């Protein structure tokens, strides 16, 4: 007569292999065995009708963390960060939205659009709070940590700083770039500004003097720039290269070459991994210390435009030309968000829930 398994003790190793450590049967604990490897199941967030060009996470709030996506359909969306569930759509822009950001506690959102405006939104109600008129397409927006100031940049080659407590006042303007600005962000505790432009430079500016402190010049236009306050690291991508710089000195830390042209990269909060995506539609995961390529995933049906780690590092989100966002697990197989670690069928866990298993991806 067969006895039922009453308890199972399991773990997930670094190679995403589910290991049964031990199990209990007929009141005896018996040693376990190694099971099959777990394969990544990305979660697809649909809803956008055009390419997703930018995405940003908030910090961790009492209600979890949130994700905003910028889309060429002009309708940026807010989603629950750990599940990808849609919360709302910010309606009001009359052109493609090129940049989107959230403040740390996800109470405010800001967007940059082709309708020559940047907008500030109440991220709880979805209402438009402020429209900031510009003289050309706006590409990038960034809040200071206290959410009191908004930095914008775009095709008019100017950086602008708006005081959100006094929005009627004219913004401070910083000139210097000779081509359209693609990305601008605050760094060094909001005392400095980093900007990347089509003029193939990245410039560091001092906020109080409004002067250029340092410039990095590249052979080709930089495709993306991400800043990590903890550790003052700047992640830059150009061509097939992912480069890491010290954000204060702009000294190079290291570069890593990817198999294909990269459009965006993101460093894990614990700085052990980084992820990158680009023109070959794939997502790559690398070891930051050894620079080794660890994993790569197909899934998107178009070039990947943006990729970001969540604030807790448990997942990363990618936005693509195919109009979707996808969420990927950092530790494949772990129970988190909508992903559930399931034990092999033959063990027959006592309380087996109805679980949805994804069908294998159809390779185009």
């Amino acid at each position, binding site marked *: 007569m067969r006895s039922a398994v009453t308890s199972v003790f399991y773990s997930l190793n670094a190679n995403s292999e589910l290991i049964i450590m031990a199990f209990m049967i007929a009141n005896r604990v018996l040693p376990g065995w190694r099971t099959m490897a777990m394969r*990544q199941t990305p979660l697809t967030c649909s809803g956008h009708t055009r390419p997703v060009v930018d995405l940003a996470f908030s910090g961790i709030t009492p209600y979890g963390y949130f994700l905003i996506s910028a889309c060429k359909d002009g309708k940026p969306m807010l989603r629950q960060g750990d599940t990808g569930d849609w919360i709302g759509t910010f309606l009001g822009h009359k052109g493609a939205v090129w940049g989107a950001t959230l403040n740390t506690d996800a109470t405010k959102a800001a967007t940059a659009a082709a309708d020559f405006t940047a907008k500030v939104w109440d991220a709880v109600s979805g209402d438009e709070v402020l429209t900031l008129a510009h003289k050309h397409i706006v590409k990038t927006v960034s809040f200071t940590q206290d959410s009191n100031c908004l930095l914008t940049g775009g095709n008019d080659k100017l950086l602008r700083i708006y005081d959100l407590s006094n929005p009627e006042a004219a913004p401070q303007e910083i000139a210097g770039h000779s081509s359209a600005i693609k990305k601008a962000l605050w760094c060094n505790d909001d005392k400095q500004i980093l900007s990347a432009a089509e003029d193939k430079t990245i410039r560091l500016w001092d906020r109080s003097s409004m002067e250029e402190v340092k410039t990095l010049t590249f052979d080709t236009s930089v495709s993306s720039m991400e800043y990590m306050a903890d550790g003052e690291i700047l992640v830059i991508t150009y061509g097939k290269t992912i480069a890491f710089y010290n954000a204060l000195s702009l000294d190079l830390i290291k570069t890593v070459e990817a198999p294909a042209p990269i459009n965006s990269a993101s460093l894990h909060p614990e700085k052990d991994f980084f992820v990158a995506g680009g023109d070959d539609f794939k997502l790559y995961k690398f070891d930051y210390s050894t620079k080794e390529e660890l994993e790569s995933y197909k899934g998107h049906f178009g070039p990947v435009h943006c990729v970001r780690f969540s604030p807790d590092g448990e997942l990363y989100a990618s936005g693509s030309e195919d109009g979707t966002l996808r969420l990927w697990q950092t530790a494949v*197989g772990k129970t988190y968000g*909508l992903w559930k670690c399931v034990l092999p069928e033959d063990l027959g866990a006592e309380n087996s829930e109805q679980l949805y298993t994804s069908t294998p991806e159809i390779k185009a």
Partner: protein
Amino acid sequence: NGVERLNMATPVSVLRLPKGPDPNSRGFDPKSPRFIALCRTSISTSAASEVDSAELQREQHARSVLRETFLRCLLSMTNKKVQFHMYEKVKVEATFGASDIDVLNFQVSDLHTPIGVQKEALIRSQDVISFTFDV
């Protein structure tokens, strides 16, 4: 080998797929715990630290009356000629059809514009400053 291992690998199970957008609404559910906790209400008395419940009731009643009047106004406009005063000194006339649930768009017919008459059109309500019609 590596390929065999991957093909044998079990895909991670998923509880459900992420929820997509609601086609009928822009979202931001006012019943969500986050909304209830964080959304500043526009009722001035309820924002005050000492809430006078009689004052609050009066204000709430006034709000209900205003809302009901507005909704009845939209109903009575159906199939009537309405003049819309919009930004950039735009004044157009059309036959009003309906509003969507969030009052984001007005469906109109026979929209008279300086460049011709549009048989069917949607007017973005945020572009409208005011509208007038004969009751």
